[in-house]
Structure formats: C-alpha cells, structure tokens
C-alpha cells in the first residue's frame, strides 16, 4: 500500500496548490467600492482536493508498477497477444468488415434513434471528422505542421456564400468550386513556404490563416465584413425545398456519405505512391530527395489535397448554418482541428475519427457542467495528452512479418 512517505509528499503537493491558487481563488477585490472578499473556504477545497487527487494518482502508479512487475506475461486488457485489440481488428478483414458494417448501419439509423439535436451535433462532429482527415494528410502523413488550416475552410464557406449571393449558384455547383478554390489556395500558400521547416512553417500558416480572416473582416465590399452573410440556402433535394427537420436529416446523410468517401480516398492515398512519398518526406527530407522524389511537387500536393477537404466541408458548413461571418474561422478553430489529429493519433485514420468525435461531442455533452464546460475541456486535453501522448489510436507502422499464411500488417 501507500507508505507514509507518499502521504507526506501528497501533503506537500496540496500545500503547494494552496499557495498557487491563493491570490486568484481566495481574494476577490472590488476596486470601485474598495472592498475585499476573502474566500478562505476555497483554499480549503483546493487543499483537500489536491491532496486526495495526489494520493489517488500515486496509488494508481504504484498499482501499475506492481502489476507490471508481477504479471509480465499475463493478458493485458485490450490486447491480443502483443497487439492492441484495435490493430488486430483492423488487420483481420474477418472482423473488420462486419464491424464497419455495423457502424455504418448505426450511422444510418442514428437520426431515427435520437432526436434532432443529437443529429445536428453528430453532423457537426462528422464534419470535423472530414476536416481532421484532411489535415491529417498535411500534418500526419506529410509531417508539415499547419496552424492555419481554417483558412481553407473559410475559403470553401465563403465561396458558396458569395457565389450564391451574387450569381445564385446552387449548393451542388458550389461544392466542387469551393473545393477547387480551396485547393488553389493550398497551392498558393504552399509555394512560398516550401523552404520552411517545422515551427517556422507553423507560424507562417498561422499568419496566413489570420490574414485571410482579417481581409474578410475588413473588406466589406467583397465579403460583407463582420456582419457576415445570412440566408444561405440549405442544399436542395432535386429542386424541392425541404422543411428544417428534413433539411437537417438530409445534410446529415450528406455528411455521412462524405465521411465514407473521405475515408476511402484517404486510405487509398495512404497506400499510393504519393502517400508513401509523403511519409518518406515526413521521416527524412534529404533521404527522400536522394531517392528521387520531387519534394516540391509532393509538398504541394499535400497542401492542395488537404485543403480540398476543408473546402468541401466549408461549403457544407455554410449550407448547414445558413449564416457565416469571419468570427467562425479563428485560430482557435485551427487549434481544435489540429488537436483532433494529434489526440486521435497522427497518421491514423481511425484515430482521427475517434479524435473528432471525442473533441467535438465532448464540449456538447459537457454542457451539463454549464460554466465549468471549457475548464473541463482544457483539462481533459492536457490529461489525455499526458496519459496517451501517442494519441488515442496510434498509427502502427507498416511491418512485414514472415509468418505462415499472413499477408502482413496493415495500418
């Protein structure tokens, strides 16, 4: 069990946190009426809370240590042999197909099982799945850290909104146009940053995202400025106008279809010549060039293809909310999409899907905690990263094993 020494340490931790939170939690001043409110009870809560939490965490680690020592070859939870269960399922079509079929059926029946609100937030979450998968091409596969991904999303959304406003172009026409414009912007951004590496790339993409948003905010004649564009039509169903409920349903199925297409395409891309070039580029640029891969072309296609998905989702976003303004496309949005990719597991398609579902649905379900919602969200982000730095479902590198009658692992 936990020794006295450990308790002492936890006690020290508690003291430290009481000190840390002292001015912000305990003192509340009213600078106008010049009164001070001392909330000592908060300090007590922090102390007790920190102590209990610290003891629990210690106990958890001791337990973990002990079980690791005593049972080296016992079965671990969620593992089959040495392989995590998820990877095992992914590798075996025997399990994979029925399982994905089941998920698909669930997805199709979802609106029937749950109410409109649930369908609506699920649509949002699925849109982020596509965004995550798109960014995954750039960040996860090609290893280019992009903090301004939201710019392409904005391009997609505004292309539909503006084309519709000026030329009355419908949703289905706008969809490919938005995607193409976004891809074009991807290439435009890609060119100047080809030489940049790592974090320099990150800040330039961040700057690019901000520039596009600020231009939209200031250039009233073009974009209607901060008051945005309203009354964007929802997608029509063969020329019919749908009621709100059925429109939500319609968009939901549209997004489900888009998710399936995206998964298919991204999966194929990963295994293609291009996909392997991306991964090679991520691992070592110089070795990659030495192997005869055209670095410029490979990077640009990564940007362009990543941006395409953002453009597609952007168009759907505009059609879904029927109103857009630049405030929806801030840096925080880019950060959330990036978190989806990293939290899910970089480069892993299934991981990104889980990441998006968790990160987008979490704040919605955290509404139960009302004002503590975003506090919990930030905290969970940290805790998840600390406990699973490789992401929820880590990408497993392709390995070939010589075994009888197996084809080798798939990621």
């Amino acid at each position, binding site marked *: 069990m936990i020794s006295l020494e450990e308790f002492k340490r936890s006690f020290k931790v508690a003291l430290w946190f009481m000190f840390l939170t002292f001015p912000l939690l305990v003192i509340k001043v009213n600078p106008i009426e010049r009164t001070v409110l001392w909330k000592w009870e908060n300090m007590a809560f922090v102390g007790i809370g920190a102590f209990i939490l610290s003891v629990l965490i210690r106990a958890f680690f001791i337990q973990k240590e002990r079980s690791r020592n005593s049972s080296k070859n016992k079965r671990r939870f969620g593992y089959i042999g040495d392989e995590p269960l998820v990877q095992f399922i992914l590798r075996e079509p025997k399990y994979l197909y029925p399982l994905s079929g089941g998920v698909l059926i669930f997805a199709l029946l979802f609106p029937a099982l749950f109410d*409109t609100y*649930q369908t609506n937030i699920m649509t949002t979450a699925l849109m982020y799945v596509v965004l995550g998968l798109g960014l995954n091409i750039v960040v996860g596969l090609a290893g280019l850290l992009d903090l301004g991904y939201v710019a392409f999303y904005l391009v997609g959304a505004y292309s539909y909104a503006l084309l519709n406003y000026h030329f009355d172009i419908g949703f289905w026409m706008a969809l490919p146009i938005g995607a193409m414009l976004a891809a074009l912007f991807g290439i435009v951004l890609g060119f100047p940053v080809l030489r940049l590496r790592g974090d320099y790339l990150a800040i330039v993409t961040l700057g690019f995202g901000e520039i596009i948003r600020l231009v939209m905010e200031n250039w*009233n004649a073009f974009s209607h400025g901060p*008051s945005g564009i309203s009354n964007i039509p929802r997608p029509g169903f063969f020329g019919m106008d749908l009621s709100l409920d059925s429109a939500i349903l319609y968009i939901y199925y549209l997004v489900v279809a888009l998710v399936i297409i995206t998964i298919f395409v991204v999966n194929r891309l990963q295994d293609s010549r291009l996909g392997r070039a991306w991964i090679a580029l991520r691992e070592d640029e110089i070795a990659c060039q030495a192997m005869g891969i055209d670095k410029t072309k490979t990077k640009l296609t990564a940007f362009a293809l990543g941006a395409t998905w953002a453009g597609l989702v952007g168009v759907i976003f505009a059609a879904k*909310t*029927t*109103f857009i303004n630049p*405030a*929806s496309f801030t840096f925080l949005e880019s950060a959330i999409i990036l978190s989806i990719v990293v939290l899910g597991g970089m480069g892993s398609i299934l991981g990104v899907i889980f990441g998006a579902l968790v990160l987008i649905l979490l704040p919605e379900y955290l509404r*139960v905690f009302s004002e503590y919602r975003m506090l919990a969200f930030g905290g969970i982000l940290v805790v998840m990263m600390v406990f699973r730095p490789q992401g929820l479902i880590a990408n497993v590198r392709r390995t070939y094993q010589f075994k009888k009658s197996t084809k080798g692992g798939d990621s």
Partner: protein
Amino acid sequence: MKLRVGQTLLAAAIGLTMTLPAVAETIKLGVAGPHSGDLASYGIPSRKAAELVVAKVNANGGINGKQVELMVEDDVCKPEVATNTATKLVSAGVKVVLGHICSGATKAALPIYNNAGVIVMSPSATNPALTQSGEYPNFFRTIASDDAQAKAEVNFALNVLGLKKIAVIHDKGDYGKGLAEFAKIFLEASGKGEVVLLEGVTPGAVDYSAIVQKIKRSDADGVIFGGYHPEASKIVTQMRKKRMEIPFISDDGVKDDTFIKVAGKYAEGVYATGPQDNSANPLSQTAIDAHKQAYNEDPGAFYENAYSAALALVNAIQVAGSTDFDAMKKALQSSDVDTPVGKIHFDESGDAVGVGFAMYQVKDGQFVEVK
C-alpha cells in the same frame, strides 16, 4: 435548482425527452449567449438577470401557477454553435428564449426557432436587419438598433456640439463596424460635417497610441466610436494622456458603468447614447440591488436590458395564458409592461416601443443625461 436543470439536460442529452411524461407543470425558458470564451462578459450578466427574475417569479408562485424552469445554454457567440444551441433548446421543448447576445449568433439561430414557433427576445443584438428585414417574425429586442443609435450620435455631434470634422473609429466587430458605417452615411448625407477618418482598431491589442496619434493628425474635432467599452476606455485614456481633449461620442456598448470604472478620471466628459435614464425608475434599482445581493458586485453589460426582456417575456406568457406563438406575439405587442428600461411594448417588427433614448455624458463618475 441547478441540479434539476442539470438532470433535465442530461435526460435530454440521452434522448429520453420523447419517452418522458411531458413535464407539463413547468414553463421552460431558454437562455442563450456566450458564457465562456472571449465574449463571456457580455453573456453572463444576461444569464444572471434571467436567473434572478425567474427565482423571483417562482418564489411568488410562478406564472399562472406554473413554475418557470431555466435552460441555460452557451453559444460562445459563434453562429455554428448557436445553431446547435438552438436545436438543443427546441428539442428540449423550450418555447421562449431570452437571447442570443451577439447579432451573428442570433441571425444563425433564428430560423431554427422560427420553424419551431419559439419566441426569441434579445437584450443586446442590435443589427438593424434582425427587425427591419421582416424575415424573423419571432424576434424581439429590448435594445435600440444600430442605425437609430448612429443617427442620434450624428445629430448630437453636428447639431448640439457643432462639430465639423469627425473621426469615426470602430472595433471591426459586427456591432461596432455596423454602427460606424451608419454614422458615416448619416454624416455624409447631412452635408454639415465631414468624415476625416474611418478606421477600425484591433480589439485586445496591447496599445492604441498609434491610432490616437492618427486621430490627432487627421485634425478631427470630435470622435464617434462604434464598439464596446474595453476598447473605448483604452482609446479615451490614451487620447487624454496625449492631451487631446476633443469630444468622444459613443454608443450603448460604452454606456456601461464598467466603462467609468475602468477609464476612471479619463472617462470624464465622454458622451454615450443609451436607454433613457432609469436611475429614477424604482424597478431599475430593484434589479441592480438584487444583483448586488446575490453576487456582491455590480451587474455587467446588458444586465438591465436582459432583466427587462425577462420581465417582458414573463408578462407575455401571463397575459397570453400559454406559450402559444400567436398569443404570445399578440401579448408582446399589445400589453405594456413596467421594466427597468421603462414601460414598454413591442412594435410589428419586434423593436421595443417606450425604450427612451438619450444622450449621456460622464460627469463626476456618473452618466448624466444631456438635456
């Protein structure tokens, strides 16, 4: 109270609302606005106002014998979140909503409410199109629209202060920029003054001295500012510190006691339009006292508007006898109600009638009406 709301939300979240026996004995009042993120300071006071009004109503036996239940939802002032919030409230069976706070979020959410026959009343969404376009028959507000304010400011600047060269500054936001542009249109149409500068400042920037120098160079004899009090107080402070004493005229995003507190002595002499002086109105005092008692601090932005909106909604439900859309709309338009912002009812388009409008000036740390 809180726990019950939590449980209901949870139940709604799992999708049980349909199978639950209709919770018929309560009236659900939705409250939506930003309660987290950078704009939280504009949403939280409204939430508190709603909580206080509802607590009072419930303590007095509710509306027509039914208790009022609050459903508070955060929309972070973002249109896409606001649509989710709206769908959630509609799914939960809410028929009356106090919110949203930002015009953009309101615009995105309104079609969803309209479709479900939900009455929406905002304490703060001032975009003119919300009422004037006629697209949102379910929308009401207890605040004046941007163009009305801009007109009042321009008239005041030209006719009362006799200014000729005016610098129009805004905060690039939905509200501020819209107002600034109306001000520019009215100024140019009047033919009496000219706009020597029209620029936006970046909200949250660490320092505004460059724009202040630019105003000085433009040789303006007055500034009209569209936006909220944090930026206004920064600009005024830096103007006064740079010894620029030209008049500073702003809107009801600035006519907020926080402005005087934050800008301190530099706030002296600043003009701001706002709802008529309510300090003589006992209801306004009651509202502020209730807040002080509950939270031990002064209320924040749009608190009185939200308090009034809550009272107006409660009254409408009482008069209509139900939350039926047409009955409520009729009640809102026909029945006068005493609120902290005055005795009000609503016109055809949804704007409040009876919310007097006045120009204020800061004198000795207080907004005083300019007669």
